[in-house]
């Protein structure tokens, strides 16, 4: 029996990218994890469960070469192919995906489109006062979680960055921070807060604008806004102004409710106003482990963070037009390459159903509704467990992922598979000259 231990492994589940995981491997199988949350433990320990081990064409096993050939034919013969996903793979693979998209004149979009896409639109409208997790840990004495539930979605965020860790100017950890949770329902996160403010669904914009007015010293005649009494909002506005360093970690409660990016726009404007009084910052709670990388790499390569169209040979950007849900619901694409995502599970029915009407190539580790709808399925190695590479933490800090086990025989990383498709696309282009 070959036993190996790894320390300081990065967890490839959520945007926290916790970098202190300890892994024990026996005979190329993860048998024990330490410092991991329950989800991270599931990701490492169940890595082998239900793996796709052979490429599939029309649901039947095929050779790798045939699958690459079929995938290339689908993508290169399409008039408007979509490349979608990107968020559960490394930056090296995302770079290849952008390259492929340019070669085939396709549209490339990431899972940003259904999570913090609205945040990015707001960021481009308003600008943002942002930070790193280290600064929060060491300096912030007021933490507001707005429309986010890290206790369930980012289970170690409290412990590593925002609530309990002892920092340079927060030496007493939890005692040195006041925690506020603003949400439409009580959650595991709200239970640990010093103050829970329950709001009416779809009222975030109104409440944030009311807070802006209060921070600016205006008196409001309304008795309540969005289900919250004015005296509670006055107290919160005052607390925000008095903080030494404040941070709002916000989640999809803002992005996926009515008003979408305007909610985040109002938050960024509030944070900007607060910087007239004290130091205040804000950070989106990013979900998939490298969705931030999807935005960063796409931006390096094209100038735009998501929703990029190469159909004219140069990149164009327009959320709502070149975003995956819109393209599929309007039936505007005629083929798709899906990687690092499962849109048949995560998209509304009107968008996911169109994936069953067009040829889809999916790079995936395990069977998913998207792989079930796909013409071609190519198994890939688990990014961050079976391959190394780089990824961006939610605060845009790049970190090196660690390989701890080998992938199944004949299974390659996303980057390698995309490289093989790119090589073949280039060959087809040469042949057609």
């Amino acid at each position, binding site marked *: 029996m070959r036993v190996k231990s790894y320390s300081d492994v990065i967890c490839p589940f959520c945007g926290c990218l916790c970098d202190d995981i300890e892994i024990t491997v026996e005979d190329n199988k993860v048998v024990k994890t330490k410092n991991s949350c329950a989800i991270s433990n599931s*990701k490492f320990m169940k890595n082998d469960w239900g793996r796709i081990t052979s490429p599939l064409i029309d649901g039947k096993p095929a050779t790798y070469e045939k699958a690459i050939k079929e995938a290339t034919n689908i993508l290169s013969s399409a008039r408007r192919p979509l490349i979608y996903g990107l968020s559960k793979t490394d930056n090296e693979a995302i770079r290849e995906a952008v390259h492929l998209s340019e070669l085939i004149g396709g549209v490339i979009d990431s899972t940003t489109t259904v999570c913090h896409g609205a945040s990015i639109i707001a960021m481009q409208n308003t600008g943002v006062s942002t930070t790193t997790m280290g600064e929060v840990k060491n300096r912030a004495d007021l933490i507001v979680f707005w429309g986010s539930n890290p206790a369930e*979605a980012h289970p170690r965020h409290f412990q590593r960055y925002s609530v309990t860790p002892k920092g340079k100017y927060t030496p007493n950890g939890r005692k040195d921070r006041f925690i506020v949770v603003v949400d439409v329902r009580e959650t595991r996160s709200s239970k640990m807060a010093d103050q829970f403010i329950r709001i009416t*669904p779809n009222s975030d914009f109104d409440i944030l604008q009311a807070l802006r007015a209060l921070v600016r010293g205006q008196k409001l005649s309304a008795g309540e806004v969005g289900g919250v009494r004015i005296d509670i909002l006055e107290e919160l506005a005052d607390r925000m102004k008095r903080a030494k360093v404040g941070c709002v970690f916000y989640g999809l409660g803002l992005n*996926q409710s009515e008003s*979408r990016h305007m909610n985040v726009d109002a938050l960024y404007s509030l944070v900007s106003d607060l910087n007239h009084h004290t130091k205040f910052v804000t950070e989106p709670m990013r979900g998939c482990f490298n969705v931030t990388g999807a935005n960063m790499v796409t931006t390096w390569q094209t100038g735009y963070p998501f929703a990029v169209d190469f159909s004219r040979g140069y990149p164009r950007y327009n959320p709502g037009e070149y*975003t995956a849900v819109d393209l599929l619901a309007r039936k505007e694409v005629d083929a798709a390459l899906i990687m690092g995502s499962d849109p048949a599970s995560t998209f*509304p029915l009107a968008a996911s159903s169109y994936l069953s009407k067009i040829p889809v190539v999916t790079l995936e580790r395990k069977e998913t509704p998207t792989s079930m*709808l796909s013409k071609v399925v190519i198994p890939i190695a688990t990014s961050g467990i079976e391959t190394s590479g780089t990824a961006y933490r939610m605060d845009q800090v790049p970190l090196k992922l660690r390989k701890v086990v080998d992938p199944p025989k004949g299974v390659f990383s996303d980057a390698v598979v995309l490289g093989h498709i790119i090589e073949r696309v280039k060959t087809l282009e040469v042949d057609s000259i």
Partner: protein
Amino acid sequence: MTGMIDVTILTGRTLQQGIGLEVGKVSEEYSKSVNYAEISKSDSIAIGFTDGSPVEVTTEIGKVVLHGRISETLSPGLIFVPYGPWVNQVLGPDTNCTGTPQLKGVRGKLELAEGKNVPSIHDLVKIIRGA
């Protein structure tokens, strides 16, 4: 008393959903972690619901049958369903030019679904193919 009531649908992540999806989308752990709706106590009385029975959620987009669970903390008029292909049966694709569909705070209706079955993941794939 039984009947149909107006509700606002909330969606979101849960710890069990995260654990389940990392086992696999075709695993029982995943299905169990996302194929239910949490209902406030007062709403459960309003529709004559007993814990564990199936309920049907309807919006202008469609309908889906889910396992019902009583929540002690949810406000009346709200239901919570974890993200996943079940709740996506009733959510619309309109993104208001942002790329992001409205997945939270969606108006719908809730009623008992006596005699109806909660679809499996494979049932949902059939629905996706046929839609």
